């Protein structure tokens, strides 16, 4: 009977272990599957075509060129090494400017014919219209080949315009730089302070002070991130704006400050626990050799607990890189390449959170957001693997 129960418990443990590992694997698989879809998606909006006049010798247009054309930044085909001809933009909704409703037919049955005529007539035209209105036989224009989004465009792209029509632009660089800037800033701010507090609590504070400080710091870790964001927005952002005399206070620096505050409890508790594992005998050995308390701290205790301190740092960075809500609230969310700390930036997690709701499932935008998630996942993965490697090497 007892054997039987033990078997059941054993089985239960095995099942829960494998279920949780499988779930994690499934999440990763799902993430990468959705993300990979981006490179199979046409660069222009699905279900639409771009067409030009037959005489136009332009072959391929990158999403960025298409955006510049439709935004009116490029007005002549020669700017993109085509012929010398002004560009005429034609969107489907412009159709009624050219033809009356009678000409188009009651049920729009003549529309394909008319579009074909129009494209044939205007040498500088670029027409953007639904595929269903493309004349099946004898279209008198040139349909531009459907381009796919390339790896280079995503990972090397410097612009993020996910809702631009006809061709959205997904460039990782501004978001990646925004994320790194905010996170590095947060770590630079929180690390010295966090380690200092950890040293104080582990080695210097007496029992009563420590008993008072520890619960307060642990309480800090439990505050929801949206509250931190709120605090940042209400207090830190105006403070930064005033102190540095900026046009807006919502900057990368504000994000770093809020993240630094959020990462502190993690860094402090993990680092302090690590330092407290230093055997008393080792501290005594150092003191018995005439070392002062400070010498003992930085020559024995810190080297001894260095792997614990590094994991504190990694957990802190992990929190900073992955944090969404608070950052979304205080960084200003401008997806541009940052040139200084005092500019609005947008991070990867904030982008995902802000845009996923408006991205149609399965579309290019949706897949691009998943790809962002995958990039974030890879960053933290690389980070933890490298730290694991470093701390295993450092042990002497």
């Amino acid at each position, binding site marked *: 009977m007892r054997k039987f129960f033990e078997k059941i418990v054993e089985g239960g443990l095995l099942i829960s272990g494998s279920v949780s590992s499988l779930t994690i694997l499934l999440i990763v698989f799902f993430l990468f599957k959705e993300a990979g879809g981006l490179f199979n998606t046409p660069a222009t909006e699905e279900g639409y075509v771009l067409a030009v006049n037959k005489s136009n010798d332009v072959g391929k247009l990158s999403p960025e060129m298409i955006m510049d054309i439709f935004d009116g930044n490029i007005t002549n085909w020669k700017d993109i090494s085509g012929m010398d001809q002004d560009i005429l933009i034609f969107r489907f909704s412009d159709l009624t400017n050219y033809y009356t409703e009678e000409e188009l037919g009651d049920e729009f049955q003549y529309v394909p014919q008319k579009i074909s005529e129009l494209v044939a007539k205007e040498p500088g035209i670029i027409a953007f219209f639904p595929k269903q209105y493309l004349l099946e036989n004898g279209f008198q224009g040139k349909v531009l080949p459907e381009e796919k989004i390339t790896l280079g465009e995503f990972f090397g792209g410097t612009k993020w315009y996910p809702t631009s029509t006809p061709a959205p632009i997904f460039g990782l660089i501004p978001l990646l730089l925004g994320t790194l800037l905010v996170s590095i800033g947060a770590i630079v701010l929180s690390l010295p302070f966090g380690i200092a507090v950890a040293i104080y609590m582990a080695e210097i504070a*007496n*029992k009563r002070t420590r008993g008072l400080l520890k619960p307060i710091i642990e309480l800090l870790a439990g505050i929801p991130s949206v509250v931190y964001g709120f605090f940042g927005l209400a207090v830190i952002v105006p403070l930064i704006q005033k102190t540095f005399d900026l046009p807006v206070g919502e900057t990368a620096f504000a994000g770093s400050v809020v993240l630094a505050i959020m990462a502190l409890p993690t860094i402090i508790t993990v680092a302090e626990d690590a330092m407290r594992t230093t*055997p008393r*005998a*080792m501290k*005594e*050995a*150092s*003191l*018995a*050799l*005439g*070392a*002062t308390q400070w*010498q003992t701290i930085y*020559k*024995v205790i810190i*080297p*001894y607990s260095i792997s614990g301190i590094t994991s504190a740092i990694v957990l802190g960075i992990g929190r900073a890189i992955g944090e969404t809500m608070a950052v979304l609230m205080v960084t200003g969310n401008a997806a541009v390449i940052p040139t200084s700390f005092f500019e609005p930036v947008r991070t990867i997690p904030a982008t995902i959170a802000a845009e996923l709701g408006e991205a149609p499932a399965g579309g290019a935008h949706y897949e691009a957001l998943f790809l962002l998630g995958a990039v974030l996942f890879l960053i933290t993965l690389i980070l933890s693997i490298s730290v694991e490697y470093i701390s295993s090497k450092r*042990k*002497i």
Partner: protein
Amino acid sequence: MIKIDAQNVDFYYGDFHALKNISMQIEANTSVAFIGPSGCGKSTFLRLFNRMNDLIPDTRLEGKIFIDGRDIYSKGEKVDTLRKNVGMVFQKPNPFPKTIFENVAYGLRVNGVKDNEYIEETVIKSLKQVVLWDEVKDKLKDSAFALSGGQQQRLCIARALAISPSILLMDEPTSALDPISTGKIEDLIHELKKEYTIVIVTHNMQQAARVSDKTGYFYLGELVEYGETRKIFTNPEKESTQNYITGRFG
């Protein structure tokens, strides 16, 4: 010459009266063993000589301890200077998470020695003193944790000797070691006694008999008997001492 002079020492852990009115004189360049059952206060007494008990909160000392005629608990006395002069070897080998070389060099470095040539000479000299040099000379850059327990303990002794103390306190230095390593440490104590004053706490009666010139027997916080080792072991004055060394209790 009197090296250590303890006068009417009382010591308290909070309310617990751990040492009761102990007076003892230890001569220079001798070795003294403290024996007694667990909790009798012998380690506590030993740790008063380099003020190691200062680290424990809520403790109190009454009475005076002089080393080389200086009251080590008086206000002006600097504890790091004292500890430089009074080295200590602990119960379990406790090398630092550093290389073998750096372990021995540690005491010099924290005491502000910058001259690398001098550090190297001293490290080699100290390792030779504890007869460890031949075993480690090719792996000075290796981690000290790679050594065996006995080697680690000799390394810890070398580490204590490197800053040239005049007193060496040993708190059960062989209790975590095998008999061969223990033998090596005991031989070492015989050698070291020529240059250092050695105070050793031990649970091992034979060890006390082998390595010490004088022995103090502690019981329940009191120094029951203190005298020539030979006399304590052959013809003790107190019955309690007799009972302990013959193994009737403890």
